[in-house]
């Protein structure tokens, strides 16, 4: 058996070359996204169709920030898309963003859904709603987030991990409204009402309600629309009633998915064009229709399901304020042992 070093070597090199993507010089925008590809690719496709600018995206659930930091000035990323306020503020605080003149988006994006300094912009909002079993919970029995800590719900509530960004944002808003001590009491109370150790995502909680493991769950509103699209998940959605908490006082806690322009964006101009597109009517419309999220731009038509729920009072607390409390909220989850 003859071993040829050179064959082996060239094999390795060529496979490396094949696998490494080549640099393209056409007009393009590079996107780092926490949002799943199937949720934003349609928007990008529409944008490319309209403008001819290609959009390359990489999706990761974790680790984007670190990647951006270590890539430094050489980072190819132009825009970062996130699913909640947490990552947006983290990236800004890490000094990885640059500001965009918010006058561009006047009339498109409300003030409380964008960064005061123009470093990030919300593109859609998501309400954190409470769903309750049609069979076992009467309408009006539970009306607010604070009710969740009421001992009468012991062993009847399911939520996802207390350290997930959506729950963290909710806790952060509780801190903003009730102070740290009050929020901690609330969180501990909610934990003791959990029917099971937090596991799975929001949809899994609805599934648990359907299966009888618990009676009440906390989810983001658009999951209802998503579940109704999947035949296997329709029974889950249909087993619960939807309620927008705190309508009688401050309103329902809202989170945003948003976008930020990176500090060293190589394709700045084209990236801003994309931001324009997404904040404009067409982009916003697609968000509403395709994903069932609430567009930030007012006047854009909602989808059928959202219409059926009707208008509701939103907590006007600025997202920036929520972002400031996030660190404390995460620690609080550890302190009450929420996930144990």
């Amino acid at each position, binding site marked *: 058996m003859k071993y040829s070093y050179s064959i082996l070597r060239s094999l390795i090199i060529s496979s490396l070359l094949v696998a490494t993507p080549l640099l393209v010089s056409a007009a393009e925008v590079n996107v780092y996204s926490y949002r799943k590809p199937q949720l934003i690719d349609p928007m990008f496709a529409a944008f490319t169709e309209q403008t001819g600018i290609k959009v390359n995206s990489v999706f990761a659930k974790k680790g984007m920030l670190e990647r951006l930091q270590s890539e430094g000035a050489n980072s190819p990323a132009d825009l970062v898309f996130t699913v909640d306020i947490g990552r947006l503020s983290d990236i800004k605080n890490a000094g990885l963003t640059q500001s965009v003149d918010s006058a561009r988006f006047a009339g498109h994006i409300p003030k409380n859904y964008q960064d005061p300094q123009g470093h990030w912009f919300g593109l859609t909002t998501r309400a954190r709603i409470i769903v309750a079993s049609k069979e076992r919970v009467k309408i009006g029995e539970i009306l607010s987030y604070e009710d969740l800590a009421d001992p009468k719900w012991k062993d009847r509530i399911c939520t996802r991990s207390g350290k997930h960004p959506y729950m963290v944002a909710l806790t952060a808003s509780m801190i903003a409204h009730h102070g740290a001590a009050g929020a901690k009491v609330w969180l501990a109370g909610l934990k003791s009402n959990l029917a099971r150790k937090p*596991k799975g995502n929001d949809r899994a909680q609805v599934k648990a309600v359907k299966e009888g*493991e618990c009676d009440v769950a906390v989810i983001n509103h658009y999951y209802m629309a998503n579940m109704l699209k999947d035949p296997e998940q329709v029974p889950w959605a249909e087993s619960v009633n939807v309620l927008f908490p705190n309508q009688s006082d401050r309103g329902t806690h809202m989170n945003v998915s948003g976008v930020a322009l990176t500090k060293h964006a190589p394709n700045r101009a084209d990236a801003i064009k994309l931001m324009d597109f997404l904040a404009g009517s067409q982009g916003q419309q697609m968000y509403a229709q395709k994903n069932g999220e609430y567009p930030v731009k007012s006047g854009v038509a909602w989808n059928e399901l959202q219409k059926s729920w009707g208008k509701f009072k939103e907590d006007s607390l600025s997202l920036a304020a929520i972002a400031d409390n996030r660190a404390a909220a995460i620690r609080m989850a550890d302190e009450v042992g929420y996930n144990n």
Partner: protein
Amino acid sequence: MATGLSHALKHLPRQGHQSGSPPDWWTAGALVLAALALMPVAAVVFFAVDSSGDIWGHLVRTSLPGYVGNTLWLMLGVGCSVFLTGVSTAWLVTMCRFPGRRIFEWLLLFPLAIPAYVIAYAYTDFLEYAGPVQGLLRALFGWHSARDYFFPEIRSLGGAITLMGLVLYPYVYLLARSAFLEQSVNVLEVSRVLGRGPWRTFTTVSLPAARPAIVVGVSLALMETLNDYGTVDFFAVYTMTAGLVDVWLGMGSLAGGAQIATTMLAFVILLITLERISRRHQKVYQQSSSRFRALPAYYLGGFRSALAIMACALPVLGGFVVPVLVLGRLAIVYFERSWTPAFQTYTLNSLLLSASAALLALLVALFIAYSRRLNGGRVLGFATRIAALGYAVPGAVLAVGILVPFAAFDNALDALLRRTVGISSGLLLSGTVVAVLFAYVVRFLAVALGQVESSLEKVSPSMDMAARTLGYRAGQTLLRYHVPLIRGGMLTAVMIVFVDCMKELPATLLLRPFNFETLATHVYQFASDEMLGEAALGSLTIVVVGLIPVLVLSRMIARSRLTSGNPAGQG
């Protein structure tokens, strides 16, 4: 004689070194490779030393004890499980005779093809409330909701232990089996002549002799357990790995994550030391002309053989057949949604990446192992141990340890080039496949090293000396004489590294370049969104691909029983 003489004169002594010691490329190269393998671990420890606010205090007060506790329980449970399953099946299959034994010998390997997170997804779908098992129970007993009856929660610590045990026992099985096969026939025969029955011979003769091999197998299984991210994330079992990712990414503290990682390294060093010591006990020089002798066997009668069949069938059924059937059904049902051009690309990505990494890992392992054989010495031995550490570092931590230095290098190089020649080199290492390849090689080098080293140890040192005196330099000796003899070990190394790369998840998630998904990351994404159906096709593909090396290994096992004669040369 005249021609001989003229030959002697023609081929005068080749050039030699007269002054000082010659530059020893082998040692230098091995040290460089070991340093590269160490780099991510060093980077992680370096960051751990960096101050991180009072997050360490916070961790110790709140969640760290939980992380450590969960990890310990998981490791204890999995350790016991793989020991019992692996050793018992290995012994049954080598020492006893019962119908189907020959088939079970290689069937028992099959769960190796299934990554832990895939079996977790499969059983969750199978055993959850909406799955067929509970559905059947409810139909039979007239229950209506989860409140009406008790069913063990699969997504729990217990579930994790059971399922991980089911896919990790082959490590122990393989090693215990080969240890039992290599037993001294004479010792066994003496034991039987002295009147010891099968059980006593097992506990007093076979088991102690196989202990080093078994310990190695269990250590490997435990290392895999420590590394797992997909399963523990899905089952909400907060082990140190899950905690690390949570602290690093959820709380934004890289240093905190690195500190948890450093704590894990303590476990890791323990496991590696255990494995190394046991391997040393395993050391045997194989005679180059040993004959094949059949081991004395226990023929099992009716009831006992039924038990034996069951004992062997259960791991195969539970660890392979059931998950594959579950996934198969899901894959068929969700086929249209899953079989997309993107999916095909991901498959190709996985294959290419894993194959490249496996070859690379083998080359590095060969170099280091041979270097050690040539020059021995404590320095090289230490360097080899260092190079092996990467195996036990969780993929996510490895990713951090690789990303940051790579990116720093890229930025420095770019800055340098910009200053001197005015062009930008951009990102050469980080954000390309090189980073992922590097992660794979560092992570799985130990596997390749272990295989290559133990194969090399079976080649008598006089072989080396014979080749050298016949005029071959060290490198040529390796290629011409060692490699053909250790072909089996090399192949095994490539196979196992290939399979491990296919399954690898966290490092790939964090290091991959633009628009690059592997099958593993694709499956994980869907499953963690509770879309198990969409994840099934990818999972099944991973298993099928993972089966290929398992099948080859199985054939080797099946065939090696039939060839009498030199085990070193053939097969």
